């Protein structure tokens, strides 16, 4: 093993290969608060990549209801339990001032074993702790859809009166959108004894070489997010390919410019923004929407950072879910992220407008000031809304989108209001 820096954990960690970051990193921000679980993303994925034989059970994109739902069933419960290791690995975070570092440890310091470190601590004969989900676990991708967790789930007790009060609902669920995280330190890649999995230097996309794969299912076993899948029909494994032809700009629609992945571009709830992070995480570009949301404003957080793979899909956590649960899922950055999201700054309000306005990947944004249109108070904090204009540019500098904070409204002609 070598020592590599994982900025999600705020420390170096053990990994079987040297730190070798890509020039740019495929990334996405998912705003959980806005997802309506329409599964359009899931179907966009399915009809593009996994519609043929042996892929019936494969959903490279899936949306599951938390806390009970999961595809494969209970994947996160199972990994957390493995990582918990009967309490020997409590997965704590240190968040005092000296444990934080603006660039190298923005969320604090993780003081526990990652999936790689635990495998070593326990002397396992593999790179990371993990398991292979069986047939039944893959079978119901949307099991427990809309099933809420409640403090008072027992019928004998009275229903919680305040169940829908913020900051935390007593009865809650939320949708978690999941694709392969194209991790900086992929466990799938570490696990593969054939080195059939590689991470592209140009955009950080993680792929399984279909020629080298021999169907050993080591990636299926050791990816904590359970995103590589074994295809019985061809006896080898497949995984999300980040729609790389689109990312490369091969689709003629965007005229050679990078294009968002299918699941991103299809999102009805406008919760997704897909782009490339600057490779050097210590020097984020304040004008790149990905860098800004993730590194600078820190409103979007990695999923289960304690696993140690440095995943690259970032989530704006749901406002209403219990903080303890969210901290377990997104790390200690949750409180800051939610403070910022609940009472958004002028800049955040503008950047959030960029979500799902164009298929072209945006690599730069500018904001033009507008007049103040609204003022309010959210949980004791003053919120002012300005009708600013946000402009998104493709990497070649072309202006792709120009949108105002206040949505234009239309009043229909009276003649069209006839009721029969």
């Amino acid at each position, binding site marked *: *093993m*070598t020592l590599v820096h994982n900025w999600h954990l705020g420390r170096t960690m053990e990994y*079987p*290969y*040297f730190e*070798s970051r890509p020039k740019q990193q495929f990334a996405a921000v998912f705003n959980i608060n806005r997802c309506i679980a329409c599964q359009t993303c899931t179907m966009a994925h399915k009809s593009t*990549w996994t*519609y*043929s*034989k*042996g892929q*019936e059970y494969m959903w490279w994109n899936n949306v599951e209801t938390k806390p009970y739902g999961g595809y494969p069933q209970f994947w996160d419960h199972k990994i957390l339990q493995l990582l918990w290791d009967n309490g020997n690995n409590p997965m704590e975070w240190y968040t005092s001032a000296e444990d934080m570092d603006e660039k190298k440890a923005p969320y604090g310091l993780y003081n526990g074993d990652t999936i790689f470190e635990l495998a070593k601590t326990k002397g396992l*004969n*593999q*790179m990371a702790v993990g398991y*292979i*989900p*069986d*047939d039944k676990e*893959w079978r119901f991708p949307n099991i427990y859809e809309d099933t809420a967790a409640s403090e008072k789930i027992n019928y004998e007790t009275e229903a919680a009166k305040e169940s829908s009060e913020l900051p935390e609902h007593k009865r809650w669920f939320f949708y978690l959108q999941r694709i392969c995280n194209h991790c900086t330190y992929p466990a799938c890649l570490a*696990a593969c*004894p*054939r*080195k059939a999995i590689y991470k592209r*230097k140009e955009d950080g996309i993680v792929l*399984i070489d*279909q*020629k080298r*794969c*021999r*169907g*050993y*299912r*080591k990636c*299926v076993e050791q990816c904590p997010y359970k995103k590589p899948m*074994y*295809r*019985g*029909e*061809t*006896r*080898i494994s*497949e995984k999300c390919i980040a729609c790389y032809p689109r990312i490369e700009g091969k689709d003629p629609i965007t005229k050679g410019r990078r294009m968002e992945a299918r699941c991103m571009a299809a999102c009805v709830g406008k919760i997704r923004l897909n782009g490339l992070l600057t490779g050097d995480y210590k020097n984020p570009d304040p004008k790149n929407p990905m860098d800004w949301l993730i590194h600078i404003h820190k409103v979007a957080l990695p999923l289960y950072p304690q696993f140690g793979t440095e995943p690259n899909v970032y989530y704006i956590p749901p406002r209403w879910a219990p903080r303890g649960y969210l901290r377990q899922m997104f790390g200690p950055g949750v409180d800051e992220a939610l403070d910022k999201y609940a009472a958004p700054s002028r800049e955040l309000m503008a950047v959030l407008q960029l979500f799902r306005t164009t298929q072209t990947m945006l690599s730069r944004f500018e904001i033009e000031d507008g007049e103040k249109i609204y003022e309010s108070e959210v949980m004791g904090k003053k919120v002012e809304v300005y009708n600013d204009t946000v402009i998104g540019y493709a990497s070649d500098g072309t202006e792709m989108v120009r949108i105002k904070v206040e949505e234009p409204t239309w009043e229909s002609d009276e003649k069209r209001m006839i009721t029969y």
Partner: protein
Amino acid sequence: MLKKLLWKSVIIVSVSVPLLLNYSGIILSQGLEKEASVEENIPTKEPLVVKYIDSDLNSADKAFEQVDPLKIELQMQDLAFPNGGGSVKELEVRGFHNGETIFFNLRWNDVTKDERAITHEQFRDAVGMMFPLEIVTISPETPFSPRMGDRGKPVNIWHWKADWEKELHVAGGFEHMEDEYPDMWHDFDFDPHPDYFNKRVHESIPLMAGGIATGTLLSKARGRSVEDLNAIGFGTLTSQAHQDVKGKGAWKNGKWDVVVYRPLITPDENDAQFVPGMETFFNVAVWNGVEGDRNGQKNISIRWRPLKIEIVKYKE
């Protein structure tokens, strides 16, 4: 023109730097493997004698009765990640040749027959034989890994697979999803003619599969049960463009009985060549599917065995 070339060289250099980094990563990860013991470079004394017997595949069983078996003790693979195995303790090998073809017989105990690898939890039974690609001397002074060969020390591997064997006997030479899931066309479907409809939808679109596009032998009917491969160390196993080895295996009463055979000499430079009268080495490994054995999770012998190929005895 010159300018273009110059640019190219700049690109090549900038590409090779990350490549170099990548490679150092690979080398480093291999540094993880435990050092092999000196003993591993001392082949055992007792050889397997491949007798000359004027026989062929059809009467191979009788021929094998005439030769003494070499019993090889197996152990878990404990050097390279991922480790594993240990459930199969012994393998019996016999060999003969008829002047044209070399036959090996491999027998081992396995209470379960695992001859399918379609669901996530299914792993196949398999057996492998390995030969140095070239004529070599093996000693502590001239080491040669008895595991997967090494850089500059290529090996030729013959890998018999139980599912490939079974597929030799099914229609089309390949098992599909519907063989594992016979109800797949109408599960969860309340249409009165689901079978017909779903099947037709499935069959009306071409199968989109990386495995098929890249032509890997695992993903298609290949008409043989043994894969012909090369390796130069852990993680380097590569299937050959020319497949020359065949096999025949059967499981009975808790025992696999497998024959693998190939012409003594082939025109393929990636194949080990067997000239009657010569001496070389071989090693073996067994995979027990029910235990989840695959790749480095296997039952191995950690010493090379001498292999003596008898000269052809012409009848007067």
